[in-house]
């Protein structure tokens, strides 16, 4: 199937030669999706980018820099720029925690046992809760008068109710509750793609569980882990409603998404809103790129198992 045909000898028509390179009428089937992606994704992005270089006069006056005033404002205004770190401080630990905790659980639940399907369903169920309901539940359950604090006081572990919501912790809990089921789902499906006979072979050669994990399962799982981390990180990085509802939106959980929304809906500064949104995407893509680069150093073979 060499795609480079020999035009000199070929007597076939243009249509046929194009078809040999994969260009045929079939490609029209792509048209709706491509048109859609260009109209609703590429065009708004370009438009938004255009907006970022049309700052409001007030921004130019405050930060200078002409058409780059929005970017200057982003990097010079600590109120805005600090949100990058605030978001990272929330998203990275949450994503790492979700992935790290999912690995042992996915491993243990790989074995066949009674009630496995029920347990898996229960683990995945929080996906239905939605961030808004999780926020409401956390406020009631973990609030000062909530059952959690009440129980801890009654048991005698603490004297004063712990501050678990309306701060960093509240958002972290909410990210774990919505992110963990997702991470577990992905990791266990990647795990199910690894052929168990590879591990069995190592076992017959006398490898202990840690050796098997480190030398066999982990390298095979690494691409899946990277993908899972990236997807959970995207979820955590774009945290928005819970940062407002169970967080401390003016200080500890003043995340990028919140700032972008404020500029968009409250200050009606569309150019600044687009700037924050696009830079937010850039920061997030940088982390994604680092993860995938790091992954390519870890292991470069086939992912094994499925084939």
């Amino acid at each position, binding site marked *: 199937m060499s795609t480079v045909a020999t035009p000199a000898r070929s007597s076939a028509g243009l249509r046929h030669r194009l078809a040999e390179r994969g260009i045929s009428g079939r490609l029209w089937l792509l048209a709706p999706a491509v048109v859609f992606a260009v109209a609703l994704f590429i065009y708004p992005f370009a438009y938004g980018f255009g907006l970022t270089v049309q700052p409001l006069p007030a921004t130019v006056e405050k930060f200078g820099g002409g058409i780059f005033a929005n970017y200057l404002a982003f990097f010079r205004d600590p109120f805005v720029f600090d949100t990058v770190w605030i978001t990272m401080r929330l998203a990275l630990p949450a994503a790492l925690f979700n992935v790290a905790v999912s690995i042992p659980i996915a491993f243990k639940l790989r074995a066949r046992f009674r009630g496995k399907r029920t347990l898996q369903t229960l683990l995945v169920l929080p*996906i239905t809760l939605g961030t808004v309901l999780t926020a409401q539940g956390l406020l009631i*359950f973990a609030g000062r008068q909530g059952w959690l604090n009440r129980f801890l006081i009654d048991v005698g572990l603490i004297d004063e109710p712990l501050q678990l919501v309306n701060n960093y912790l509240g958002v972290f*809990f909410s990210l774990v509750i919505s992110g963990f089921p997702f991470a577990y789902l992905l990791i266990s499906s990647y795990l199910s793609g690894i052929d168990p006979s590879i591990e069995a072979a190592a076992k017959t050669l006398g490898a202990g569980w840690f050796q098997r994990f480190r030398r066999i399962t982990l390298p095979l799982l690494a691409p899946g882990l990277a993908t899972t981390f990236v997807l959970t990180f995207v979820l955590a990085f774009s945290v928005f409603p819970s940062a407002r509802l169970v967080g401390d939106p003016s200080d500890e959980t003043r995340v990028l998404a919140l700032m972008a929304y404020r500029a968009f809906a409250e200050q009606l500064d569309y150019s600044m809103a687009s700037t924050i949104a696009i830079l937010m995407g850039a920061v*997030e893509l940088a982390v994604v790129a680092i993860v995938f680069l790091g992954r390519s150093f870890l292991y470069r073979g086939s992912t094994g198992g499925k084939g």
Partner: protein
Amino acid sequence: MAVATSTEVVDLRNRGRGSRPPGERSLVASPGTWFVWAGIAVFFVFLAGIVVSVLVDSFAKQWFTTWLPEEWTVGWYAQAWDRFDLTHVIGVTLLVAFSVVALSVLIGLPASYVLARTRFPGKQLVLLLFLLPILIPPITYGIPLATVMYNFGLGRTILAVVLVNLVPSVPFVIITMTPFIEQINPSIESAARMSGARTVQVFTRILAPLLVPGILAAGILVLVRTVGMFELTFLVSGPQSDTLVVAIYRAMTSAGGGEARQLISSMGVVYTAMMLVILVIALRFINPTQLVARVKDTGDD
């Protein structure tokens, strides 16, 4: 290995008595297992606490400093239903969700067919085009998109809500369906073409029946995502086009300290009930832990 074999022997012996199927055994209690179970238990305690406290709150008349409310009532549901016009809100939610499912399958399926079956110049670029909306946070493309919508006068309409929700849904359908189609033996199609079937016929007679499980799985996941999608909907929706999540959020953050907590709790219970119904139906058709593994093959290269 020895353990597994002996269990199997036991199981074979017990088979007549209708115990576990061969090869299945209860989890052995090693320290690692205890650790995992403890973790799962803590997670479930939190989860149950959250769900039950919202449920209790939605029936509570007065609940301040006691373990359980002093008085119970079902009045909050009726109140919430009237006050937030939940009939309308739920109608909008379902209308939006089903339109998004139908449109994203219609747009995405042909594209995933091409991606699964043909190599063509620029294929990587097209793949990237469909991967980006999944990799980029919704707010990042949502804000420019919402600005464009408002400029076109589409702001706060149901059409705008449907359109923004399509942005992540169409790529999602494409990414899930491509490996599904790859698994179908192309010689079936070739045979149909040899017998004179046209592309449309190949689609309706050959591919569609084979793809039904995949379409169902992708469709249901898109449905769940759309019903739960907050960020994108919130950016473009208005009073007449709010979905249920957005309506709850607005009630929680409305000016003047928000609505009575119980009103919000009862709306939350309605939302969860709706999601549960969808998910229970979904789990009848798909095995959650095997769904995503198929994506892996297209994810890289």
